[in-house]
């Protein structure tokens, strides 16, 4: 194509914040593009770099939307690195993002993704479609592949309300950025197999919102019961999972008070049952 001014202008026009950073400030990207292909100074696939890891996110659809919950523990090897970490974040007004894997990189990717969506909204004057958001997130995870190969992997779970379709949708990813739409419910992280088992028994179609919160917290409880890297509800420190619901009106964090009551009921029912497993 001819190198006209119009072509240049069109080529430079981008609504993507990540693309803008790649061109102007690649040093600011969480997955250092300037070192692409270069080995990280410490750690390799055999002996991964010691860094805090986040675990176990559950997400499920319910009547009128979708819900995502995460436990509060980060681990570094066999040590608890944090009891307060948050792994579920609002991505924009109608979507949420949960992250499992290397916490530091995951938090940066989350921040970049939040700015990416807001930037698009401000430049274009309209929200990105839910599929568009899901694809952008996939591209970001793929950019992190060189780091993932060296043991610093990030695996997100993405959920949002599809306004034109009028329903909540759920997307999972692999480390290569592959995007998969999930039905009903999904979980990621080291405790995911236990949480998944719980969800299979507890989930049912068209759950009311309050029941959905209880199902998510109970699935996390089961994950924490069997996975040492997942933290359970902590009545001593008054720590409860982070739970977001997304529906037609937007993404909202479920208040602590409500979660304390839900977690209390679950602990009580388990204590009453007096069973080992």
């Amino acid at each position, binding site marked *: 194509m001819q190198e006209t001014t119009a072509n240049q202008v069109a080529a430079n026009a981008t609504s993507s*914040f990540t693309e*803008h*950073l790649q061109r*102007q400030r690649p040093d*600011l990207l969480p997955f250092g593009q300037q070192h692409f292909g270069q080995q990280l100074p410490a750690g390799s696939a055999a002996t991964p770099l010691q860094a805090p890891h986040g675990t176990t996110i559950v997400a499920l659809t319910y009547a009128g939307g979708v819900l995502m919950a995460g436990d509060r523990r980060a681990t570094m090897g066999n040590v608890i690195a944090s009891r307060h970490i948050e792994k579920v974040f609002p991505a924009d007004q109608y979507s949420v993002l949960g992250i499992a894997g290397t916490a530091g990189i995951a938090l940066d990717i989350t921040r970049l993704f939040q*700015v990416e969506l*807001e*930037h698009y909204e*401000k430049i274009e*004057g309209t929200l990105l479609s839910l599929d568009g958001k899901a694809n952008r997130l996939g591209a970001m995870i793929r950019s992190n592949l060189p780091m993932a190969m060296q043991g610093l992997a990030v695996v997100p779970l993405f959920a949002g309300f599809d306004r034109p379709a009028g329903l909540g949708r759920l997307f999972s990813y692999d480390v290569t950025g592959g995007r998969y739409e999930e039905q009903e419910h999904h979980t990621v992280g080291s405790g995911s197999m236990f949480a998944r088992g719980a969800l299979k028994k507890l989930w049912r179609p068209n759950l009311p919102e309050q029941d959905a919160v209880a199902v998510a917290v109970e699935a996390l409880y089961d994950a924490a019961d069997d996975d040492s890297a997942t933290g359970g509800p902590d009545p001593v420190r008054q720590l409860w999972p982070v739970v977001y619901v997304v529906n037609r009106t937007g993404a909202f964090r479920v208040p602590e008070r409500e979660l304390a009551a839900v977690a209390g009921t679950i602990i009580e029912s388990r204590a009453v049952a007096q069973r080992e497993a």
Partner: protein
Amino acid sequence: MTQQFYVSPEQLMKDRADFARKGIARGRSVVVISCRDGIALVAENPSPSLHKIGEIYDKIAFAAVGKYNEFESLRQAGVRYADVRGYSYDREDVTARGLASVYAQSLGAVFTAEQKPFEVELAVAEVGSSPDADHLYRLTFDGSIADEKGFIVMGGQADKVSESVAAGWQVELDFAGAIRLALAGLVADKETDTLPASAVEVAVLDRGSESSRGTRRAFRRLDDADITALLAEEN
């Protein structure tokens, strides 16, 4: 080779300024008013999608008059500047003062170095915790920057509009009052005495967006129904 005619720098700058002023004077006006509830931005603009008012960042909005393609490129540059800055430092490190000085530098550079100056006038508004903490900056085509108190009027018949707004402005105005005042100002130079909701573009920077809407993004665009409802409200 033909000899170029000598033009004195004074004459050159004067010609450029006259050219830019003429371009701006053709456009319709924009009013930015700081009031009790926040900052109201009101523009006469019949297009529902080509905006003269835009969100830059959490507490910062942008309003412009003049050539659309020129101020739109400045708006996008402002959003990029603010997002990069907020991403690399922190959200609270993005200020209207920083943005306004970047705009002043780019406008100044274009005015002196480019073939033709930008035919635009901009306002950068940042809402604070009280009306005293609001910042309103006015930027003109040559890169001059002015820190205004209370309100800014830009565009075509700015003098007449400004007179009318100045007569009614008080710091205690709520959004409905501020928008009514701005609309009354915008018709000051016309035969009619009202503008239909479809002929204006209105946005606000909410002073209490965290408490009332649970979001740090204070910018809210009002649609035609909102404007009609606000105007119908009795004081």
